[in-house]
């Protein structure tokens, strides 16, 4: 299995001017040099609290807000090699757009309220001129069935405000997957849905991932959801990835103090479970750093990477 996406040293800075008379331009390092790979067919979870930079990373990856520096390479299936997104010509850009999609968090704002469901799902096909015109409608009906919105005819002429939140999210998924992209970024797609519906949406996404061999970058603040959805999890804090490992490995053997703190803060839906609150302690991390003083991310085995320098950030008690 080769890599689908390789991200190296991704940086995104925002300049904030200090006011009308101030000459100082404060720089906010939303994403401060992160590295990760995603293999074909794999789901990587990007977990962190609000403001840690996960959404910024997502937007930089799909060129909504271009990155400040760093490299993002993706596997082009036609040319069969890794291509940088900085050097895309028109054809390359079109291929990139066909293969990279995003599902948003808010089901109520991610569909154009003045378009019908049919037009919304059909739009990607129209933009990329895929298939004959009559076939496009067939494709829409087919994908509606796949995401569980049956009978499809009931939904084609509806407007987004006429269907529920869970159904809207399915429409988003349908629209995203109609072109069979290789890579989909999911920005907390279930956090605004009812608890009882979340699982059905997540199961749908898992099944589609298997059937269509899609990779996901699954962004969430909820580690429990990440556990359900992802093969690997990367933990982000303050614009940096502090730890990245296979899901069970991360949950059972966290190394970085932030990860430990995060995991220990999560409530468990079991009244008899005694949760131990973790108190931040750098000893273990220091020992590992001492052995590998030069590496930015240290591999402690099992593809489990821990960040070292500059990650002893003050965890602000607020």
């Amino acid at each position, binding site marked *: 299995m080769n890599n689908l996406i390789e991200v190296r040293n991704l940086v995104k800075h925002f300049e904030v001017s200090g006011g009308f008379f101030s000459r100082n331009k404060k720089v906010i390092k939303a994403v401060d040099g992160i590295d990760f790979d995603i293999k074909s067919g794999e789901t990587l979870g990007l977990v962190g609290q609000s403001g840690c930079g996960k959404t910024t990373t997502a937007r930089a990856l799909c060129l909504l807000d271009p990155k400040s520096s760093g490299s993002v390479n993706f596997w082009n299936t036609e040319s069969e090699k890794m291509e940088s997104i900085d050097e895309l010509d028109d054809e390359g850009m079109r291929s990139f*757009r066909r293969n990279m*999609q*995003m599902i948003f*968090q808010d089901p109520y704002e991610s569909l*154009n309220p*003045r378009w019908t469901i049919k037009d919304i799902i059909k*739009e990607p096909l129209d*933009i990329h001129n895929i298939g004959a015109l009559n076939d496009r409608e067939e494709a829409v009906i087919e994908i509606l069935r796949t995401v569980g919105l049956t009978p499809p*005819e009931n939904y084609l002429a509806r407007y987004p405000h*006429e269907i529920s939140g869970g159904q809207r999210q399915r429409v988003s998924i349908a629209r995203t997957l109609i072109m069979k992209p290789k890579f989909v970024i999911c920005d907390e797609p279930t956090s605004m849905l009812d608890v009882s519906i979340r699982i059905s949406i997540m199961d749908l996404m898992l099944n589609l991932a298997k059937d269509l061999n899609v990779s996901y970058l699954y962004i969430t603040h909820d580690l429990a959801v990440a556990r359900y959805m992802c093969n690997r999890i990367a933990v982000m804090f303050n614009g940096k990835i502090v730890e990245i490992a296979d899901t069970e490995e991360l949950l059972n053997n966290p190394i970085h103090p932030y990860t430990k703190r995060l995991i220990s803060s999560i409530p468990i839906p079991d009244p008899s479970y005694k949760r131990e609150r973790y108190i931040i302690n750098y000893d273990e991390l220091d020992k590992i750093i001492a052995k590998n003083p030069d590496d930015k991310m240290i591999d402690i085995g099992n593809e489990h990477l821990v960040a070292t320098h500059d990650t002893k950030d003050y965890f602000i008690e607020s």
Partner: protein
Amino acid sequence: MKNNNNEKEIAKSLRREAIKKNWRLFKQSRLGMVGLYIVFFFFLLTILQPILFITGMWDESTYNPVVGYVDQTQDFLIVECPKEFPTEKYEKRSDCPGKNEVNVKTLFYADGEVGETIQLNLQPAPPSRRHILGTDSLGRDVFSQIMEGSQVAFLLGILSATLGVGISTILGTIAAFFGGKIDAYLMRQSDLVLMLPTLPLLFIISAFAELKIWHLAVVLGTIGGLGGTVITIKSQALQVKVKPFVDSARITGGSQMKILFSHVLPNVAPLALLFMVFSVTGAIASESVLSFLGLLNIEMSWGLMIYLAQVEGYIFSGLKFWWLILPAGLSVTFLTGGFYLVGRGLDEVFNPRLRKR
């Protein structure tokens, strides 16, 4: 095939449901309903006139608002009013001239001696069975003139409103979408136009050019379109621009133009429609002011009716010639008020809807 039919059926029934729901929401607003009745009433007037002419119920030569005329004369006895009262014929000063009598001193054009009978035109004639609202000084039916004025008002209002809102929507959306220098320029332009006082500007324009109703519509529309509405539409467009569905379209690879016209514009349109309704009121009011001042080259309108009444001195006779002033004045007031109320009613339908789940 079957899919298509089914789909169309469902689409039709969904539209019907949606319209019914919107109508119910609009009905809730009492102001909106009142406004709607008023506007509808005037609209009926608008189409009533051609119907009456076409079906022959009204004889065009009599009832045409511009050139209609029918003789209405009456015999009057010429008298000379005495200087002191009471006399044997008259008790008070106000008794002379009496009914069917006319004071020789007030006769300008006719010649006649005291004691003679003379035929005088009764125009402007008060309301009678044949002329519901009477006639003006040229013998033209006032009711017909009101209907004609209604046509003018609707035409002018809708034309200028559409033009104005069309311009401002496109400009506002462009400013929001492209930002930077384009935005800065458009905003300064908007500020400039906002500063200009509309009516004096119209006076100046009418001094240079002969303003017909079409011209006025274009001028009003352009001035309105370049003015403050651009700023409001721009702020709405800015809100739409950052919504996830616009991001989604960009990620899918949509071009700037396509996103602008297919995604952003349709979401700004409801607000634009609202402005359109409100700007109709300004247009109608402007027209009546301009006609009142005699600055418009127009055959008949409400403003012109009042202009004529004033120029011929009937305004100062108090309510004696009320049918020359009140119908036209009240029409302007009510129609503009009606449109405004409809706008208020529409506001309640659109605003919560725009963000409704």
